[in-house]
């Protein structure tokens, strides 16, 4: 009984623990269409074996996995506009999302004409 309670508490703590990872949208220059090209970089502690990216439209919808397994503390080019991005860490089938998000808006490279 005591073991069960202890195990339950440990699982409870793990489930609710905040995953200390972060993601940044980075300016990777200008595309041929005159729009900003985005990159994504992320940082996370090495205690999690597997790192993935998830994205969803900032206009609504569900989270979707992007690509496959990622390197730790790395970066990639971000192919989609108007998406919200986050990293997900998994360990033996147990996954949790980081509590920091980054948005890659559709934005022009050149300064807009006015306020």
């Amino acid at each position, binding site marked *: 009984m005591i073991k069960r309670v202890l195990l339950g508490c440990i699982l409870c703590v793990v489930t609710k623990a*905040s995953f200390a990872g*972060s*993601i*940044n*949208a*980075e*300016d990777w220059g200008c595309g041929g*269409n*005159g*729009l*900003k090209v985005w990159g994504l970089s992320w940082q996370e502690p090495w205690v999690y074996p597997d790192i993935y990216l998830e994205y969803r*439209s*900032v*206009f*609504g*919808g569900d989270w979707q996995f992007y690509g496959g397994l990622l390197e730790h503390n790395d970066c990639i080019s971000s192919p989609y*506009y*108007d998406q919200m991005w986050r990293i997900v860490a998994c360990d033996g089938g147990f996954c949790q999302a980081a*509590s*920091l*998000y*980054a*948005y890659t*808006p*559709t*934005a*022009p490279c*050149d*300064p*807009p*004409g*006015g*306020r």
Partner: protein
Amino acid sequence: MIRIIGLLWLMLFAYPSVAKEFRVVGTPVCVTNDQSQRCGLQWENMSEPRRAYVIERFRPGGYLGNSVFGPVAAELDSVGETWTALTEPLKSLDSLAENTVDGGYLYRLLACHNYEKRERCVASRVHWVPLLFDSTDDIPSVVYDRSLEGYAVARDTPIWVQEIQYNVYLLIQTLDYAGGVSLPPMSRPLVGPESNDILDLTRSQLVHRAVFGVYEGKR
């Protein structure tokens, strides 16, 4: 049994009232000069004159606005009003735009025969007044929601890009706090989120395009 009925009655009638829905007529448009961060709202296509006109700002319960301490402070004010009048009832439609408003909030214009009793009112579409900045130094790096999840502003990007991100994050906060409150449609941007034809837009129009997509997707 009586206690249960009493409790049910309380749940049904003592719950904080939500915003009353009005028929939607016309659209607010921000008229401002380049020297000012603030915005005067003009009511376009308002075809039904009334005796009283009011500017209302949407501030859902618990949401205190554009503060980095919002999630903490919000706990102290868990039940707030939804739509708050920013002016006394005005007698003419033209005088609305003389009362400028802050960026970073949702607004609507309300016209009634009797504003206090909300008699024969019509409302405009909702309009997000963009929060624009003179310097990127003034834009917070992260916006936290009430679950202490953070939304990062990309620091190495130009000001118009950070403005889009920051305004979208503020709107997400507003809608998160709004919960199930029913909201009217938003004023349509010049270029909607379905198009990437944005190279000729101003900074305000870029924000409008993005927040419109978020708002209509979530409300």
